[in-house]
C-alpha cells in the first residue's frame, strides 16, 4: 500500500497572465530586451511567440491521464498506445512535438521511473513543464543511484517483490509511465479514472490511490 503525502494534483489551467504584480527583475528585463531585438530584427514575431505560448499551455499531465484512463478501459487502445504513443495521443486530439514518445507500463513485477540526469528532458508538449523536483539536481543525481530511497521521499514504498527500472532519457526518446489500474475501480468512468492519475504518476514518482503492490 502506498501513501501519497507528496503527490501533486493536476495543474489547474490558469489563464495566461501578465505579471503586473511582480517586480521587474534583471532576468525579465534581459529577456524582454532579447525579445525586442529578435522581433525588431525580424527573426520572430510577437504573434508567433503568443501562438507558441498558447500551444505550450495545452501541455498538461491531464492529457496523459486521459490517455492512460482510456488504455485502462480499452485494451485495443492500450496496445496502440504502447506501440505508438504519438499516434495514440493524436487519436484523442492531443498534438505532440517530441520526435520519439514511448509509454512504459508498470506491472506487478516492475515499477518504472523516469529521469534526465544530464539536463531536463521531459515530454513537454504532452505533459507541460516538468515539476520542480524533476529538474532539480538532487533528483537528477539520486534517482539513478537510489531510486527506492528517492521514492520513499515521495511517500512511495516499492516492496522487495517488485523490481524498479529507472529510465534516463539522455537521447531522443521521451518517456511516459503508465501506472497499473488500482483495484476497486471497475465502476468508474474514464473521467474518474483520469483523476486518479497525477502528474507524479506519469514519471513514476507516485501511484494512483488504491494501488496494491505484491502481497
Amino acid at each position, binding site marked *: 500500500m502506498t501513501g501519497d503525502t507528496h503527490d501533486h494534483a493536476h495543474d489547474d489551467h490558469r489563464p495566461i497572465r501578465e505579471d503586473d504584480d511582480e517586480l521587474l527583475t534583471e532576468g525579465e528585463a534581459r*529577456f*524582454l530586451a532579447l525579445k525586442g531585438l529578435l522581433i525588431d530584427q525580424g527573426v520572430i514575431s510577437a504573434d508567433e511567440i503568443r501562438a507558441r505560448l498558447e500551444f505550450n499551455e495545452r501541455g498538461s499531465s491531464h492529457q496523459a491521464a486521459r490517455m492512460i484512463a482510456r488504455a485502462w478501459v480499452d485494451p485495443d487502445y492500450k496496445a496502440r498506445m504502447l506501440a505508438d504513443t504519438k499516434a495514440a495521443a493524436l487519436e484523442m486530439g492531443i498534438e505532440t512535438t517530441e520526435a520519439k514518445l514511448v509509454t512504459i507500463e508498470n506491472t506487478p513485477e516492475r515499477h518504472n521511473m523516469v529521469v534526465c540526469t544530464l539536463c531536463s528532458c521531459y515530454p513537454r508538449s504532452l505533459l507541460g513543464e516538468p515539476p520542480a523536483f524533476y529538474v532539480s539536481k538532487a533528483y537528477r543525481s539520486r534517482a539513478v543511484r537510489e531510486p527506492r530511497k528517492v521514492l520513499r521521499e515521495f511517500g512511495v514504498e516499492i516492496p522487495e517483490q517488485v523490481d524498479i527500472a529507472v529510465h534516463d532519457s539522455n537521447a531522443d526518446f521521451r518517456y511516459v509511465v503508465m501506472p497499473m489500474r488500482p483495484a476497486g475501480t471497475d465502476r468508474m468512468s474514464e473521467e474518474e479514472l483520469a483523476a486518479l492519475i497525477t502528474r507524479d504518476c506519469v514519471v513514476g514518482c507516485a501511484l494512483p490511490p488504491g494501488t496494491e503492490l505484491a502481497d
Partner: protein
Amino acid sequence: MTDKLTTDIGGDPAGPIPMEDHDQLFWEKQMIATFNLLQTKKIVATDEFRRVVEEMPADYYKNSTFYGRRLDGIVRLLIEKGVIDADALEKRTRAILAAGTRDHV
C-alpha cells in the same frame, strides 16, 4: 581522464529532493516559447544549447536557477551565432530596467 561535464551528475551525492512547485512567471513562459520557436526555425539546435550550458563555469552552474540558465544559454548561443549583438542586448536591458516597466515590450 577528461573532466566530467558539469551537467553529468547522475549518481553524485545530493541532499533532499525539493518538492515545492513554482508557478512559471509570464516572462518565463514567453522565454520558453521563444526558445521553442528558435528551435523550430532551426536558428538554434537543442544540442548546441546543451553544449553552451555545459560550457558554463562550474560555479555558475551550481548556483544558477533553471530559468536563469535557460536565458543565459540562449543569449550566449545567439551571440555566438551572430544573431544578436551583445552590446545591443546590454543597452536595451539597462534601458528597460531604468524605465522600470514592461508596458512597451
